[in-house]
C-alpha cells in the first residue's frame, strides 16, 4: 500500500476541534435583548423632544395603540417559527368581529346593516369561532394538501377581506353589543384592559414557546422538519394547532380594536400585515423558521410604535408617517444586522 493512497494511517496529531468561545454563547443568549439599547435610545430622544413622552398617560397611550397589532405580531411569530407564514391574519382581524356584528346587530338600529339573528351573548364566541375556522381552513390547505403557505394565505387574505366587504356592503358596523365593546374599552386598575390582555398573552407566549414541549416542537419543525418528525414530534398536528391559535389570536385582536372604536369598518386591519412582518423581523424572528423569540417580537413591535409616537410628538405631518414608517423598518433591519452579526432572513 503506497502512502499516497492510504486513508487511515494519518497519525492523530491534529488538535481536536476547538470549542466555541464563551463569548459566542453569551451573544447567542443576548440576542433576545438586542433591541433593548435601541428602545432606551428612542426613549431618551423622545424625552428630549417632548418631556410628555415618558409621562404615564403617553406610555399607556403607546401601549394601547400597539396592543392589537402586538397580538397580531405574537400570532405571526408563532407561525413564522414553524417556518410557515400567515398573511391572512390581517383579514381575520377584520372579518371575525365583522361576522359577529353582522349576525348580532339589530337591523332596525343600523339602517339594515346587520341581520340580528343571534342574541348579543353569542357575539364573542362567534368572533373566536370564526378565527378558529379560518385557521383550520388554512391548515387544511397548507398541512393536509401541502400547498404553499404564502400563496394560500395570500388568497385567504383577499377572500376574507372580500367577504367582509360583501356582508357589510363596504360600510361600517356600529351599535355593537356591550359584550363586544367591553374588552376594548374598559380599564382594570387604571390601565386599559387591552394592554393587560396583550401583555398577558405575550407572557403566556414566552412560557409556552420557551418552556413547553409543544412550544419547543414549533422551533424544531421550523429548524428541520424531518429531524423533528424523526424525534417523534407529530409535525402536522403541531402545524395545524399553530395556524389555528394564530387565527384565534388575530380574531381576539380584532375584537379588542372593534371594542375600542365601538365599530367594525370594512377595512379593519387592511394593510396591517406589513407592519406585523416588519415588527417580527426587527424583533429577530427569522422568516426561514426555527429562530426568534416571543420576547424579541415584543421588543420589535414596541420599538416601532415608540418611534411612531416620537414622530407624532415631534409634529411630523401625518402625510409623512408612512414614508417614515418604511424608513424606520429599513433602518431597524440594518441596525439588527449590525448588532446581530447575521442577516435577518
Amino acid at each position, binding site marked *: 500500500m*503506497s502512502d499516497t*493512497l492510504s486513508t*487511515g494511517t494519518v497519525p*492523530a496529531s491534529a488538535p481536536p*476541534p476547538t*470549542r466555541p468561545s464563551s463569548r459566542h454563547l453569551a451573544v447567542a443568549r443576548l440576542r433576545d435583548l438586542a433591541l433593548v439599547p435601541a428602545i432606551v435610545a428612542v426613549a431618551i430622544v423622545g424625552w428630549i423632544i417632548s418631556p410628555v413622552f415618558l409621562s404615564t398617560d403617553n406610555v399607556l397611550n403607546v401601549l394601547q395603540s400597539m396592543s392589537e397589532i402586538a397580538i397580531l405580531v405574537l400570532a405571526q411569530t408563532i407561525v413564522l417559527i414553524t417556518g410557515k407564514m400567515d398573511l391572512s391574519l390581517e383579514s381575520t382581524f377584520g372579518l371575525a368581529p365583522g361576522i359577529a356584528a353582522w349576525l348580532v346587530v339589530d337591523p332596525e338600529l343600523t339602517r339594515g346593516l346587520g341581520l340580528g339573528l343571534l342574541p348579543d351573548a353569542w357575539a364573542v364566541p362567534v368572533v373566536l369561532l370564526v378565527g378558529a375556522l379560518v385557521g383550520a381552513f388554512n391548515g387544511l390547505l397548507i398541512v393536509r394538501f401541502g400547498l404553499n403557505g404564502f400563496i394560500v394565505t395570500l388568497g385567504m387574505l383577499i377572500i376574507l377581506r372580500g367577504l367582509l366587504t360583501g356582508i357589510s356592503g363596504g360600510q361600517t358596523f356600529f351599535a355593537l353589543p356591550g359584550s363586544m365593546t367591553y374588552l376594548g374599552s374598559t380599564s382594570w386598575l387604571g390601565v386599559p384592559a387591552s394592554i393587560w390582555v396583550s401583555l398577558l398573552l405575550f407572557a403566556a407566549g414566552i412560557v409556552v414557546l420557551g418552556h413547553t414541549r409543544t412550544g419547543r416542537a414549533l422551533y424544531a419543525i421550523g*429548524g428541520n422538519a424531518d429531524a423533528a418528525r424523526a424525534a417523534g414530534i407529530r409535525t402536522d398536528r403541531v402545524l395545524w394547532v399553530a395556524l389555528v391559535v394564530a387565527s384565534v389570536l388575530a380574531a381576539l385582536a380584532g375584537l379588542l380594536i372593534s371594542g375600542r372604536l365601538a365599530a367594525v369598518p370594512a377595512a379593519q386591519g387592511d394593510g396591517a400585515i406589513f407592519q406585523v412582518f416588519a415588527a417580527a423581523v426587527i424583533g429577530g424572528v427569522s422568516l426561514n423558521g*426555527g429562530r426568534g423569540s416571543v420576547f424579541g417580537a415584543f421588543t420589535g413591535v414596541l420599538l416601532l410604535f415608540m418611534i411612531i409616537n416620537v414622530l407624532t410628538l415631534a409634529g411630523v405631518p401625518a402625510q409623512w408617517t408612512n414614508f417614515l414608517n418604511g424608513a424606520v423598518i429599513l433602518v431597524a433591519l440594518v441596525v439588527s444586522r449590525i448588532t446581530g452579526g447575521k442577516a435577518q432572513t
Partner: protein
Amino acid sequence: MTAAPYHPGDADRPVVEAVDITKRFGSTLALSGAGIMVRRGETHALVGRNGAGKSTLVGILTGLQAADGGAVAFDGRPAPPLADRDAWRQRVACVYQKSTIIPTLTVAENLFLNRHARSRAGLIRWSSLRREAQHLLAQWSVDVDVRQPAATLSVEQRQFVEIARALSFGARFIVLDEPTAQLDAAGIDRLFTRIRDLRGQGVTFLFISHHLQEIYDLCDRVTVFRDARHILTAPVAGLSRQALVAAMTGEDVTMPEADHRPPASDAPVLLSVRDLVTASGARLSMRVRAGEVVGIAGGGGSGKVEVAEAVVGLARPVAGSVTLAGRVLRPGSVPDALAAGVGLVPQDRHREGLVPGLSIAENVTMTVPQRIGRYGLISRARRDALARDTIAALTIKAAGPQTPVADLSGGNQQKVVMGRALANDPRLLVLVTPTAGVDVRSKQTLLGVVEDVRRRGTAVLVVSDELDDLRICDRVLVMFQGRVVAEMAHGWSDNDLVAAMEGVDLHHV
C-alpha cells in the same frame, strides 16, 4: 414511552438478522431476496456500488421503510411494527449523511428533543435538561459544550452527538451511513478511535463506506451487495482486496463496444489545464489533444466535478489557467467559455441543464442566440430548423420542436442537454455524469455521439464514475480526495479502475 422495555439478550444471538428481504420501488427492484446478519459486538461493513441496495436495506433495518417480503429480527425476536418509533429507537439507530440535528437549537435540546426534562407543572426545566445533556455527553466522552447552537458543530462533533443521542435511547446497534464522506483524515482517525472505544463497551456497528481501506482498518466482517442481491459475507481478515472488489463489480453487463481507434499521435494539443486549484482544494493539470477522449473518474468527494466546473467556467478556480486552442479562458466566466467553443453537459440536468417549462427548441438554442437571429431578435423558423436537426441527430422521441422538455423521459431530456452542448459546434465537449438516470438505449445514443464529435476533431472530457461512460475514453485520470492518483490507458480492467476510485491500489498491497 409506550413500548415495553427492551432488553438485549445473550451474546450469541445476532443483534440483527434480515432474511430474504425484497423491496420494490415502482418497476425497480431495490432488494431481491437479500439478507444480512450482524453479530453482537462486531463492527460489520456493508459495501456495494451505487444502486446496490445499501440505502434501502438501511431504511428497512431502521424501520423507516417496510419490506415487501422477508423478515427482520432483533436479538432473535421479530422487529416491532413500523409505527412504534420508540421500540425501534431502543433497538437500532442510524447516523445518516444528512444531519438529523436541528441547527437552530442548542446541543442539549437536540439531545432531548420532545423528551425534555419537565417539572410537575409540565414546564421544561432547562437547568436539569442541560445537566442531563452534559452527563450524557460525558458518559460517552464527547467533548462538546451543550449550550452552543447545533449549527456551530463540526461534521465530526455532529456525528458524535448523534451517536450519543442514539445510545441514550438504549440502542446498542448503530448504523453509520458513509460517516467518513465529509471528514478529513484526522477527523476519520478520531471517529475510528471513538468507534473502537464504543465497540469495547459492547456497541455493535454497521459501517457503510465507499473507501475500502477503511473497512480493512476498522471492521471485523464485511457484507457485499450488488444489483439488489447479497453477494457474500466474510471476515475481513481472510478476504483479499481483489476478491472484495470483484464481489462488488461482478460481471458487469458491458456496453457493446465500438472498435476503439486512438487519436492520431500528431494531433495538436487543444486543451491545456495548468495547475488548476478549485475552491474545494482539488488540483488538476492535463493536456488533451484534438479528437482525444479523456475520462476523469472518481467517487463522490473526489473533486472530479469541481475541476470540471472550473474548466468550463461554472466555478471560479483559486489558481491555475485553462487554455483552449491557444486562447486563455477567463476564470469563472461561462460566456467566455462558450465563445471559446466549450460545450457542457452539466451534472444535474434538472438544476443546471434544462428549463423544463420551455420547449425543446428553446432549450437547445439557449446558448447560441446569435445563430438563430440577428439584432437580438430571434427567428422562430431558424430556431425550429436547428431544433429539428438536433431531434433527428440524437433520435429524441418528441412530437416536435415545440414539445416542452418537461414532457420528455429522462433519457430524452438528457439528449436535449447534449443537443444544447453540441449546438455551438464545440471544440471541447465536457460531459459530467452524462448517463446518470437514463435508460440503456439513450445511453448508447449519448455515448455514440462522443464517437462522432471526436472524429471531427473535438476534444472530449468525460467526468463520471460510471464504468460504461469511461470505457469510451482513450485514457482515464482517476481522482481521489482532490488529487489525480492514477492514469489508465484504454483497456483498463474494471477492478483496477474501481479500486483506484476507492483509494486502493491492487498492485502495491
